[in-house]
């Protein structure tokens, strides 16, 4: 909470900013605090506080908006964060495929291999592999899509 207060003043330590914003987005009480603290600021600065439904209405409109951007990379490369230095086994360059296309929680019955066919198991295998490529030998740690998945119809999420 106090971090939210410091964040809105631009007085939070740089290294805490990202995690504070994430927490802010994820927790109702923090979002309430952010909203209310800004009402206080506006009241003190003389900006009329009219309808508290502004953000509600806006939220609905924003939901209808198609995604504004997918990030556009500029021609040059971004500055890489310094990687933790490696011991021997960072042989890998990160790069991954998902086990399955999103929304497709159950693999088709035609999946020949009797192995990992459970949707929950697949999800967690994917989550593990996505994080773990940094540890695994060889570029890249490839995680395949389930076979038989052709063009999946856009599944509702």
């Amino acid at each position, binding site marked *: 909470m106090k971090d939210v207060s410091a964040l809105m003043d631009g007085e939070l330590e740089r290294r805490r900013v990202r995690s504070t914003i994430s927490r802010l987005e994820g927790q109702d009480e923090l979002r309430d605090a952010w909203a209310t603290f800004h009402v206080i600021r506006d009241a003190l600065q003389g900006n009329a506080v009219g309808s508290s439904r502004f953000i509600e209405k806006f939220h609905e409109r924003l939901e209808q908006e198609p995604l504004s951007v997918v990030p556009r990379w500029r021609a040059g490369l971004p500055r890489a964060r310094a*990687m933790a230095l490696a011991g021997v*086994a960072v042989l890998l360059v990160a790069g991954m495929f998902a086990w399955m296309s*999103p929304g497709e929680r159950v693999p088709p019955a035609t999946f020949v291999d009797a192995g990992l066919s459970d949707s929950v198991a697949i999800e967690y295998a994917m989550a593990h592999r996505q994080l773990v490529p940094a540890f695994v030998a060889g570029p890249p740690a490839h995680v395949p899509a389930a076979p038989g998945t052709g063009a999946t119809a856009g599944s509702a*999420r």
Partner: protein
Amino acid sequence: MKRMSVRAAGSLSPAVSRQRRLVHAGALLLLCTLGAGTFRAPAAAAAPATDAQAWLVRASAAARTASYSGVYVYTCAGITETARVTRLRNASGDAERIESLDGTRREVVRRGDEIHYFFVDSKTVRVDRRVSGRGFPDFLPQDPSTLAAHYSIEAGPVDRAAGRTVQVIRLRARDGSRYTQEIWADQQSGLPVKRRVIDERGDIIEQFVFTELTVGERLSPRQAMPSRRTGYAGWTVENSSVEEARQPGTGPLAQAQAKGGDAAPAPFPEPRMLPPGFRKVMQVSRTLPGHDRPVMQSVYSDGLATLSVFVDPDVARVAGHEGISQRGAVGVITRAAGDRAVITVGEVPAATLRKVADSIGPLASR
């Protein structure tokens, strides 16, 4: 058709011993550039660096620093997939793109630590981050000889793969709790061009191999960017996030949380038994698509193989899914434990996973 070089142990042709000197020099140079504190230069190390270890160091550095473009084939559990990868790294940055060449149309684009997964057929993009490792406890052995405690690191023959001359490096598991791995490293660049995971019966359970590869040539930055530049209107965006986390109740963050009046979350379980050589290397809180609440993930490694324990507060999610599954090198054990779900995942044999999962003790309920 493989060209096998047959050499008796200890007898080296002039060409190879020249390589060996170059490798040592190269490895030393790489070690210097990797920065102080992470390695003792081999010359100063207590344990003598073997040829194979030097190759491993070189392969590791090449995988981290080389720019390359190629096509590879990935095989596991009867599935084969092909993809094109381009990785660019220079003084100003690090970016990468992998495009599937068969199966559903997928593309992964990484720019620094930001990763986007584009599922073209279902018009979905998933936004994620790579954990760069900065600030984390050092997860890998400082010294290749630590790895040697659990893997016998051997230089195999000189071979050919991806149209290149390669050096085979075998990491043979010293015990049955982990898999053996083999790496084919390009002699010229050091880059791993082929890798296999081999189980206790000697079967190859996972492999990738480059079929085309160019290293170190001028590559256009466009090759490491998303292939579609526009036309994402109407796509669904899934946001994931990953943040380092601590066991609640410890650390300055938790103390600050406590002072700020935030309720401290209940501690989450950790395995009491790990295979020899495995230590915890990372702990993160993940926001996964479709999950309301974050999932805690602890990652353990012996320096080469990894396993993760996920604790998901939404135990209903795993109802009916409990059990053990395996595909290729990855095994998963899903269990409900009290009011949480515990999922153990790793590139280790099923028996190892089971021992780890069994050692995750009864959970304190909130």
